[in-house]
């Protein structure tokens, strides 16, 4: 009887409860690197040897990612960036809306980049919704490659393509594959970083997975 009298548990309540209990995996631990096209086969071979999900060959993916920005018209603050991803090879899968926070590199004792990350599965109406909100498309690209898992770690080896306006074949950004090693975990689970370092070391010297601050790189390229 008391259950009926008590206030009904709303979604907000359970969310804040989950936040309090710190069980939401909203931190992404990330290491990045690349491998030249000529050496990608060797890397895939090594990953097949190291990872879990390799019984039926490596999992492939072919995604398109569109990055939206939401600017505050009154201020010159950094625009809010939202990323929408859809699978080109599995059309019935939901869209993925993703927010990625500022990467935190920490000092050199921290093994990986840490950034906050929120993922939500959405329907195809998402793009219209974002447009209605006032979001603008900043850029888009497609990624096509392979995904591996090792415990909680996710390893992707993928080619990044520029989306061409005409019917030309998509143009790769570089002669290399982007390699990312990431784990989503709740805040404070820094121990996973050490595991990632250990795994990254096993891929050396084929690939050098590192903490990379693209913001700093962007400035360097400009100046």
């Amino acid at each position, binding site marked *: 009887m008391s259950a009926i009298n008590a206030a009904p548990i709303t979604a907000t309540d359970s969310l804040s409860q989950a936040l309090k209990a710190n069980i939401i995996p909203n931190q992404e631990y990330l290491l990045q690197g690349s491998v030249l096209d000529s050496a990608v086969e060797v890397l895939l071979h090594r990953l097949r040897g190291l990872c879990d999900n390799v019984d039926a060959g490596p999992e492939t993916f072919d995604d398109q990612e569109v990055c939206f920005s939401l600017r505050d018209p009154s201020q010159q603050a950094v625009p809010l960036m939202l990323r929408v991803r859809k699978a080109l090879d599995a059309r019935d899968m939901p869209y993925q809306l993703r927010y990625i926070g500022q990467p935190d590199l920490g000092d050199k004792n921290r093994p990986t980049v840490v950034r906050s990350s929120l993922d939500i599965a959405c329907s195809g109406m998402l793009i219209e919704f974002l447009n209605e909100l006032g979001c603008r498309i900043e*850029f888009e*690209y497609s990624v096509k490659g392979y995904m591996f898992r090792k415990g909680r770690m996710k390893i992707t080896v993928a080619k990044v393509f520029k989306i061409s306006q005409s019917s030309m074949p998509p*143009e790769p950004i*570089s002669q290399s594959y982007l390699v990312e090693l990431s784990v989503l975990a709740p805040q404070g689970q820094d121990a996973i970083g050490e595991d990632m370092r250990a795994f990254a070391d096993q891929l050396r010297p084929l690939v050098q997975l590192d903490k990379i601050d693209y*913001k700093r790189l962007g400035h360097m390229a400009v100046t």
Partner: protein
Amino acid sequence: MQREEKQLEATLHAILNRVNDLKSAIQALITKLETEYETIHWPSFLDNYAILSGHLTGLSKILQAELAPSLRSVVVLPLQLGCERDEELSRLTEGRVPACTHDLVPDLLRTKPEPQAEQRLQQLIHKASTLNYDTAQKQVAQFTKVISHVWEIISKGREDWEGESMRSAGMQPTHSIADTHALVTAVGTGKGLRPGMPACVPPGAVAPGMGPSRGPTPQMGPAAPIMPKAPSAIKTNIKAANQIHPYQR
């Protein structure tokens, strides 16, 4: 007289001991070679040679010592030769010398090389002494050249072998930091992905061997910079040329 005989006997005894040591060492070496050739650990096998050389040094020390001159004044005189099998001799030599025959004795008692060999040696010495200095220098240079070629081939082979066996670093880089930065920046900030901007390829980007894995390489736009040729590929070419060189001569 008594004293001298005693000294001689002691010397002979010492020499005999040394020779026996040497013999057993050689026997151990041969046994090892014959029975354990499949499992042998070659570096430690080489230690056996060190033992042999130690025994040989000991033997020559005794022969050079003060006691040796007395041996030199002793004459060995073959009294009787025969083709019949001598059981005693056979036993003493462990079956190696069954009889004191005419083929063996000259070799056993020989103190200088065979006349034929001596003659050839003389010829060679003469030839060497009359050789022109320049010719000699030229030949030495040629020999050095040949040796250095062989050395080159061997070290190249070793490099290849080690590179293959370790599969590490290798000669060709497998990743490029410039590419990593280009990719990460592109995905992170959209650099080079925004419409109306040229493809983002840093001028220093290394791009060896256009990947054959992805079908035909997409055509670069007219504005795209020409890819610099990979330094690694050039290096490999030079090495290949070196390898060919010795056979042209």
